Structure formats: C-alpha cells, structure tokens
C-alpha cells in the first residue's frame, strides 16, 4: 500500500522536480524520468533515423547526457525542450554521418535500394488478424516513408509537433528558429505529406 502511494506521488511530480531531485543525488528520480520518456524518445529517434538499433543507442545517449549534466541542471527551460534538443541534435548528426557513409559506400559499390527498407518491428498493440495487420503495416510503412522523405528539419518539426505535441515555443527553441518560421516550416512539411499520402488522406475524407 505504502509503496503504491509513493509511486503515485512520484508520478505526479513534474519533470523539473524530478530532475532537481536527480541533481540532489536521488537516482530513483532518474529512473522515473527514464520510465516516463524512454518510449517517446525511442519512437522519436526511430522516426528520425529509421533504424531501431540506432534509435535505441541514441536514446541511451540522450539519457546518459541528461544524467551527466544533472549537476549543472537549472530549470530555465522546460525539461522536454532540453531533452528533445539533445535528441534532435544527436539524430541530425547521426543522419548526416550516415549519409556520408552511404556516399562513401556508393563510390565503391552501387547501393542496393532494398537496403533502405524498414526492418520488421515489434509493435506494442493488440492482436489483429493477419489481413488487418498487413493493411496496417502497409499504411504505417507509407506514412513512415513519407515522413522520412522530408528534409531533416521539417521531419523533426513534424515529429515534435504531431507526435510529441510540444508547444511552438519549445519546438522553435529546439530547432533554433522563430515561431513564425517554424509554423511555415510545418505548413510546407504537411503540404508535402498531404501530396505524398493523398490516397490515405482521400480515403479518410471519403
């Protein structure tokens, strides 16, 4: 009973309170932050880099950096702004490094287009029929492909806006642009997605 109440109280604590506790030496609070953000982070990073293994590596690196910086932590920005800024920078670096590597490879051999296919993934969901699963999978691949085809900054903006539901001022700080520029960036990104995913969009509107 007492344990349960403690957990509930802990869950109600804000990110900033938890981080201040971590700063004061309470590693239990770090565990709570980890539990709160590991899934959103892994998914954000997976959608940025499209490789689940790399996404997990990067998510761990984000947590490690948060932990390392705990002594200097000052709640001058929202915790999520800070964390997703680290994550976004790591993801962008990883994408750029990977592109360099791909270019080096393609100098020697022609790249196999099949290499870019997304890997089979572990889905946290119920148990639909095989047909439903295939349809859902195809849709998911289409969406993922379209999101991934966006320029990096637009991709990050869409993911932070649509899936993390961060405030405009947070996303603008993460991407280092003005809020107005961010809104235009999102407009252009969604306009591209609207065209790329037209069959899906129209099927919803019909």
């Amino acid at each position, binding site marked *: 009973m007492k344990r349960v109440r403690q957990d509930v109280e802990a869950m109600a604590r804000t990110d900033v309170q938890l981080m201040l506790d971590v700063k004061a030496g309470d590693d239990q609070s770090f565990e709570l932050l*980890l539990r709160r953000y*590991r*899934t959103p982070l*892994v*998914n954000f990073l*997976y*959608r940025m880099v499209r490789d*689940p293994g790399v*996404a*997990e590596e990067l*998510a*761990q690196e984000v*947590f*490690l*950096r948060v*932990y*390392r*910086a705990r*002594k*200097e*932590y*000052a709640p*001058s*920005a929202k915790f999520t*702004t*800070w964390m997703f*800024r*680290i994550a976004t*920078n790591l993801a962008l670096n990883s994408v750029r490094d990977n592109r360099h590597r791909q270019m080096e490879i393609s100098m020697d051999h022609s790249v196999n287009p099949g290499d870019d296919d997304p890997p089979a*993934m*572990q*889905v*946290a*969901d119920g148990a639909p029929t095989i047909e439903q699963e295939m349809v*859902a999978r195809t*849709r*998911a691949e289409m*969406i*993922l492909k379209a999101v991934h085809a966006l320029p990096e900054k637009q991709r990050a903006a869409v993911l932070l*806006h*649509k899936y993390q539901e961060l*405030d*405009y001022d947070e996303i603008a700080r993460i991407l280092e642009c003005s809020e*107005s*520029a961010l*809104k*235009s960036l*999102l*407009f*252009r990104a*969604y*306009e591209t*997605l*609207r065209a790329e*995913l037209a069959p*899906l*969009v*129209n099927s*919803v*509107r019909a």
Partner: protein
Amino acid sequence: MSSTQTCSGMENKLIAYLDGRAKPAERRAVEEHLAACADCRLRAEDFRALWSVMEDLPVLSPSPAFDAALRTKIAKEPALRGFWQWLPSPRLAFAVTALVVMSVWLSSMPRIAGGRNKMEARIEAKATQVTAEADYRMIRDLPVLENYDVLSKFDALSELSDSPVGVTKVGAGQAQ
C-alpha cells in the same frame, strides 16, 4: 473586411488554427480567409484528415534490455565527475581546468625546445587534448542551460591565455 488575407498569408497561421493553438486575432483572420477561399478550405480539411491518418503509426517498445544497458553505461561513468563535483560551480571548474591546461602548455614549451624525449612530449600533448575534449563535451552537453554563462566565462579566460600576467592574477583570485 477589405483586408482579407491572401493564401500565402495562411502559411504561418493555418497549422496553429487547425491544432487549436492560434491566438484569437489569428483565428479570426484564418476563418475570414477560409470563408472566402475554397482552395484553403480543402487544404484545411486535408490537413485534418492527414493528421488522423498519421495517428496510425505504430508505437515501438524499447527492447527489454534497454534499461539494463543504460544502467551499465551510467555505472561506467568516469571518475572525472568526482573532480567536477569537488568544485563548487561549473564556472570555477572551467577556470581551474583552463589554468591547468595552460600551465601544462606553458611549462612544456621550453622543455620541448630543450630537446626533451619525444615520448614525454607526446604524452603531455595527449593529456592536453583529452582535457580540451572534456571541456568541449561539457559545453556541448549543456544545451539551453548555463551555456551562456559558461561560454562567456570561458571566452574571457581564453583571451587571457596570451598574457601570463593576467593568468596569474585570475589564479590568485580563485585561491582566495
């Protein structure tokens, strides 16, 4: 009424209107335009449909080994942290590290010139490089937060590196 927005004027307003976060004035401007423009009405409907389509992206679960792997990495964190903790503030930590780096560098100058063995010189150069890398990582790892303070202080110190007199003064100041 004559000041109806153009379609391009919607570019930085439509998204916030659709996700419900537009300010009242922006809302009114968008509503006014939508009432007069079929293209943008269609676009608005499509964006809403697109957002519901995008909900269908599956959510990946972190692998079962995720937490354990992270805990292992955290447990392996270098003892260097003890050094940082020992200092009352990151700013002072920088000051002291910068002084150490500079004194190593300064003291190594004449001795290298005086024909010291190459191995020693290499080791010292490596040590300096490692410390500089640690500093850089500290700066990089502090996004949003005390960045400005730390960086500005650090800049001030690097300016001093040209004048050993200034360095001595700062060193004496820190010791008090």
